[in-house]
């Protein structure tokens, strides 16, 4: 950190460092500094989110188009949105089901298409591989492995018949594939969590350390 920092920049860095160290202090034991930082985070997030939604959705997508462009029909989704608040009044909470019905119907329609067209069909197609992949014996072996893995894992999740005999043996093969997948996920998760720690450590070392060295 070569350039000289202003008072505001120093303050910002020290505030961030205080919050980071307060949250890390939980690793030693629960304490008041940790609780305070946690509450500040929760409160700030909620406040920021409400403000953001008010500006980007209510004002930009509802009020402005109605007032400036005369899109009066937007009053209907606006009413549906207001009806959601009837959930706060027990006697009238049933009215919110009208809005929920619209949201559920709309969402189901969108998600069914995107799931089938964008996820299930392409993924199934990529599982149906030719044994002659053009990558020699290793390619053929991998293609077979994908087929065995998919089928055995699906059978593990087939609960309409007891897992005995051939079905049970195949399901046990499926468990191996599931465990290997869990292992890969866990390894990546460890890597991800360490990365977050490294990010904060780099801030403390380079930025807070830079501020410290300028002050003292």
């Amino acid at each position, binding site marked *: 950190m070569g350039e000289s920092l202003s008072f505001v920049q120093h303050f910002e860095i020290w505030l961030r460092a205080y919050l980071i160290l307060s949250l890390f202090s939980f*690793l*030693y034991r629960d304490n008041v500094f940790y609780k305070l930082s946690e509450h500040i985070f929760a409160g700030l*997030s909620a406040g*920021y*989110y409400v403000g*953001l*939604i008010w500006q*980007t*959705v209510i004002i*930009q*997508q509802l009020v*402005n*188009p109605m007032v400036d462009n005369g899109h009066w029909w937007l009053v209907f989704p606006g009413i549906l949105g207001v009806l959601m608040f009837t959930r706060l009044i027990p006697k009238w909470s049933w009215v919110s089901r009208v809005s929920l019905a619209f949201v559920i119907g709309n*969402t189901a329609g*969108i*998600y069914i*298409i*995107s*799931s089938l*067209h*964008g*996820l299930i069909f*392409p*993924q199934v*197609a*990529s599982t149906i591989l030719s044994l002659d992949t053009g990558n020699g014996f290793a390619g053929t072996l991998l293609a077979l492995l994908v087929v065995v893995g998919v089928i055995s894992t699906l059978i593990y999740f087939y609960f309409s018949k007891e897992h005995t005999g051939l079905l049970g043996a195949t399901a046990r093969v499926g468990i191996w594939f599931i465990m290997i*997948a869990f292992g*890969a*996920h866990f390894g*990546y*998760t*460890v*890597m*991800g969590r*360490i*990365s*977050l*720690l*490294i*990010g*904060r*450590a*780099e801030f403390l*070392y*380079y930025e807070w350390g830079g501020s410290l060295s300028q002050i003292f």
Partner: protein
Amino acid sequence: MGFWENIQHIDRRWIYLLVAIAVFFPMIVVMHFPIEITPEARQLYEAIDALPNGSVVMLTFDYYPSAMAETQPMSIAALRHMFSKDMKVLTLSNIPLGGPSIAERVTREIALEYDKVYGIDFVNLGYKANYVAVMHGLASSIESIFPSDYSGTPLRDLPMMKHVKNYRDIEFIFVVADNATVDYWISIVNAQYGKPVGSGVTAVVAPKMYSFVDAGQMTGLLGGMKGAAEYERMVDISGSAIRGMDAQSLVHLLVIFFVIVGNLGFFMSRGKDGR
């Protein structure tokens, strides 16, 4: 109580301390662990590099500040790559907290280095709620979803947006995400509108994404800080991901050591108990 029994009951705070030392040590003594480029990262780099100079690309900042250590280096490396090829960059975020402001700060910082001008070379659309609706809406009209940019300037007043109306005007979408939005960029924007999508995701999200790459639905993938370091290496910059990989590798070695010692302790203790 012997050594192996003691290992079984060690106070976890000693482990935290060792991890902390392993994280800070490479910042003092630079170690330069090797960084291999994976085929998925190379595929993403080559897809962007193959675009003609001046192409319009979309770069998403779909991540919370908590994931910045992994994802921000990807965004920075991608912006340097894109600006070095004089591409027009359209940024947006499907995450309310952090994403839009990170996009604004990072893009403007990198743009300064390449003498790029806001509104002509890059535009930050900001955030809009309900990303599924946003992704569908951008296909017909960007302006209908984002009437104004992050700062409130109407899109019609931005020169770059006169030629960028919907997905048809965008050559490539680079999704940087720490959550499930990337699934929808694939299942909606790639599958239904045919736009090539590449992604840089946090390590937690990465394993699931490999099936999209294998199926040809995703054009390249960066996974976690390692993926970010790979992209930095290909763009030929020395960023925070490359710097962080020393600590990452050292902590991984430490975790492997803990797993071996923990298991040895378990089996040795079991042998003594006769269980």
